């Protein structure tokens, strides 16, 4: 493999990182919002979220991306490949994150909530001061798991012409008729990217491990 080819893979890695990061930044809070709606059994919205989660979890990312990129513009909203990619990754991961947040909320100690209620905390204050500081720690392994899956599913967005790692590798393979070496290098890059996320998770767990244990 030539240096130029390697550089193009690195460039692809940058694209993967930026788009995955944006997808995570969209999907994690959105998932929390959806999870709260389900947890709080908000009338009307809750069943809608349920269907959303079911449908999006089962839609392959490639399909979702094609639909967003080609179908939404026919409704008169113009959408670029980057926007479509971020939407694809974010909307998809939000569905999975909704379930992760929800199971965290379901397992949240009713005793502590009751204490907070009896101390006069309003729902918003309870969420901000009591629930969330503990919830994110409990959900972190699940969320990071999902982040790794998101990065891995990101090659799907190549269908709209975004050149991320896998696409860059494919291009090199198509030029040289020898797809294996670029694929191997790409795999190495993925491992490096994802190890960073998993490592950050481990680090956070260790930092907060002691305070996070149940009383």
């Amino acid at each position, binding site marked *: 493999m030539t240096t130029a080819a390697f550089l193009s893979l690195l460039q692809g890695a940058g694209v993967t990182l930026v788009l995955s990061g944006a997808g995570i930044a969209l999907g994690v809070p959105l998932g929390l919002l959806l999870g709260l709606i389900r947890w709080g059994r908000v009338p009307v919205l809750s069943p809608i979220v349920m269907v959303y989660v079911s449908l999006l*979890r*089962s839609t392959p990312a490639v399909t979702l991306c094609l639909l967003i990129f080609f179908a939404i513009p026919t409704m008169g909203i113009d959408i670029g490949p980057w926007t479509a990619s971020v939407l694809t990754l974010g909307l998809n991961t939000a569905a999975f994150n909704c379930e992760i947040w929800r199971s965290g909320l379901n397992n949240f100690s009713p005793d502590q909530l009751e204490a907070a209620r009896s101390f006069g905390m309003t729902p918003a204050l309870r969420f901000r001061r009591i629930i969330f500081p503990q919830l994110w720690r409990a959900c972190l392994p699940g969320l990071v798991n999902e982040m790794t*899956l998101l990065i891995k599913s990101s090659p799907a967005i190549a269908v709209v012409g975004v050149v991320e790692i896998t696409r860059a590798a494919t291009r090199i393979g198509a030029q040289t008729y020898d797809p294996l070496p670029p694929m191997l290098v790409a*795999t190495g890059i993925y491992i490096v990217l994802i190890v960073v996320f*998993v490592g950050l998770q481990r680090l956070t767990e260790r930092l907060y491990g002691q305070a996070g244990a149940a009383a």
Partner: protein
Amino acid sequence: MTRDFGVVWEHADRLVEGLLNTIILTLVGASLALLIGSLVAILLMSSSRPVRLISQGIVDLMRCIPFLMLAYLAYYGLPSLGLNLDNWTAGLFAIVVYNTAYMAEIMRSIWIGLGRESIEAATAFGFRGPRLYTRIIFPQIFLAASPMIGNQLIQIIKDTAFLTIIAVPELTHAASSIQSQYFVPFAAFIAAVLIYWALCMLVEAGVFVVERLAEVRR
């Protein structure tokens, strides 16, 4: 659009064939991943530190490799080591190895929270080895982990779609072949999504049933 769906309908037999292959891959892959994942979970919970660290390392590595790459390497990479698997074997191999890691990690996380009490009682009553696992520990893990195992089963169903790259004729393969051959851009994919959705709802229904079972015991 209706014409497009007509075209898809005409070739429904190809979708059905793809669907069957997807189901076979999912069933075989998921069963093996659950089975081997249980064994790996035992290693992850081993009292021996080296065993724990090594199995943890392998599980983490699998979670870092994209599934697509794993499938690709199993199919195109292993031959250079002299191991020439056909696309079905390579695909299944990738599904099993990859999901075993996730399943094992899921079961470990539940196992940790299981509480020592019931396991200690079992030991005190003379349970050990395989019986301790099959009678006391894993039934409780499966009851508690059903939502997460369900999540992973859905991942397996969707992972099978990646096997199209190594020419395993599953559902997505059939859909994309219909779409580009007869040029029905959305209809074929929408049909595929609906079929995938139906499959995932089967999984969700299963999770629902197990969750009810768990709830009466909780």
